[in-house]
């Protein structure tokens, strides 16, 4: 088993090489950033409308909503950083491109899902998300002492791990059914359920989205923690779900790999 240092070093190389590759095509890099900013502006319009109307959702004031949407945009940036690798997986399986990765003495899952990183998609979301989080946090008058900051960051990290594990699962089906455009579209649509706080959904919708397919845990838990709205059980689930789904994704990955049949030469 390789240590954390080994994988951090490799991650450093992937970051460097992805950036170098992206900068080889400057126009494409700028176009990618522009498109992503367009998407982000559409998401911001929701918040702008809420502010203009002065609408509250349950206990959430527009300032709270700004914080939640900011968290969603921030997490979208992190997800977009490696999402291209997920998207490429069905094609790699179909074309037998995993062959030369399987023979490397490194976690294949790490290599395949982290090797190409898209900074053009990440940067606008990360910057805008951070600004919105900080602004929403301050305007809503939420506590900013070290305990709450650490808790918020902890649930952000948990959300990162959970989004990686949860959204990798549908792509692993490609090992069995090869082409999965429809399934992936549904999964991607589910990501967008988070573009508003989970409180806008009904009780059962919230429960399913929190405990069955925990997409709401990803972007809602950091904000709910700040507001003191996460009970002990929810806190434990927020920390446990990422670990549970990571284990599931690892198991399924290993099972899926046994189904890999490569492609004819």
């Amino acid at each position, binding site marked *: 088993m390789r240590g954390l240092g080994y994988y951090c070093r490799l991650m450093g*190389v992937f970051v460097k*090489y992805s950036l170098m590759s992206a900068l080889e*095509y400057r126009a494409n890099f700028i176009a990618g950033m522009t498109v992503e900013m367009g998407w982000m502006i559409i998401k911001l319009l929701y918040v702008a409308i809420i502010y203009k109307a002065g609408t509250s959702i349950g206990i959430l004031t527009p300032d709270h909503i700004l914080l939640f949407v900011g968290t969603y945009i921030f997490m979208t940036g992190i997800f977009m950083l490696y999402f291209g690798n997920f998207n490429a997986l069905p094609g790699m399986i179909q074309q037998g491109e995993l062959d030369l990765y399987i*023979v490397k003495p490194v976690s294949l899952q790490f290599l395949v899902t982290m090797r190409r990183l898209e900074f053009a998609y990440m940067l606008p979301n990360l910057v805008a998300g951070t600004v919105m989080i900080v602004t929403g946090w301050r305007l809503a008058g939420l506590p900013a002492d070290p305990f709450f900051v650490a808790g918020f960051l902890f649930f952000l990290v948990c959300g990162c791990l959970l989004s990686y594990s949860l959204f990798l699962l549908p792509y692993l089906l490609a090992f069995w059914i090869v082409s999965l455009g429809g399934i992936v579209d549904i999964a991607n649509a589910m990501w967008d359920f988070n573009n508003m706080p989970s409180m806008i959904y009904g009780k059962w919708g919230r429960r399913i989205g929190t405990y069955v397919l925990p997409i709401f845990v990803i972007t809602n838990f950091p904000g709910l923690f700040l507001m003191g709205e996460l009970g002990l059980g929810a806190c434990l689930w927020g920390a446990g779900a990422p670990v549970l789904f990571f284990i599931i994704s690892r198991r399924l990955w290993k099972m899926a790999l046994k189904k*890999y049949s490569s492609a004819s030469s």
Partner: protein
Amino acid sequence: MIAVEHLRKEFSYYKKATGIKGSLQNVFHRETLTKEAVRDISFSVEKGEMIGFLGPNGAGKTTTLKMLSGILYPTGGKVEIDGFIPWERKNEFKRRISIVMGQKNQLWWDLPASDSFYLNKCIFGVDDGTYRDVVTELAELLDVRELLNVQVRRLSLGERMKMELLAALIHQPDILFLDEPTIGLDILSQKKIREFLRIYNQQRKTTVIITSHYMADIEALCRRAVIINQGQLVYDGQLGDINRVLGERKLLSVKTSGEVNEKQWENFGRVREISAAGAVLEVPQEKVKAVLGAILSGLPVEDFTVTEIPIEESIARFYQKEVATI
């Protein structure tokens, strides 16, 4: 050492009739069929040996190499390589092997090949000094020193294949699987890569299994050939012995001063080529002397040569299943 025993690999697939009707039927019912890509293959390879793994398209060569390198799980049989079972995919095993496929690449397209070498160095945990020495030595041998800092996408196919080879050898594997490493390359590049492989094998005693459709590759590099056809092993032995297994025959090329008709030539052996200036006959080895004597005394012979049947041709006969499995 590589030991392969009764190795088998089956793939399942489904049949589809042509046209839209077939596609619609497929939605509701799929008839699953099984293809036996590799059927009960056994052979062994000694350390430092370099063997040619031959067969026509679809014979199961690449599938076998993929099982030997741990890429694919077999349906049955055993493989042991230096004490490891390839498809267990242990890191220690992966450090001992490398595979190069002529039709697949591992280099980062937009970056210089040296960056991909460095990534492999990090993945395999090669120390800085060894890495520098290996790259310098191999780049020199492959004549690519000047190209190390050129983006991969700007390299020619031949240059790229040399870089692929170099990338695959950064960790100095004990065993090297080469699947058509010279495919699509010009004669000079093929020659350079052959030369490199020959020297590399000699210097490092690396075990090499190579598949290639270019017989020049195999003849230049391998003394032993393993031939498979339709997933089954049909020959395992010295390359030079293939003619003997097929029933040793020679080619007799005779140049005459006058025209000799076909009927006359047929009295001496199987006529392979005929022209106004002579003919090429295929004759069993034990009859060469007698046939030659008869030709010299009966025909206006100007010149003659006796040669072996080209190895390519003999191997093609295995491909066409003209011979029984040995």
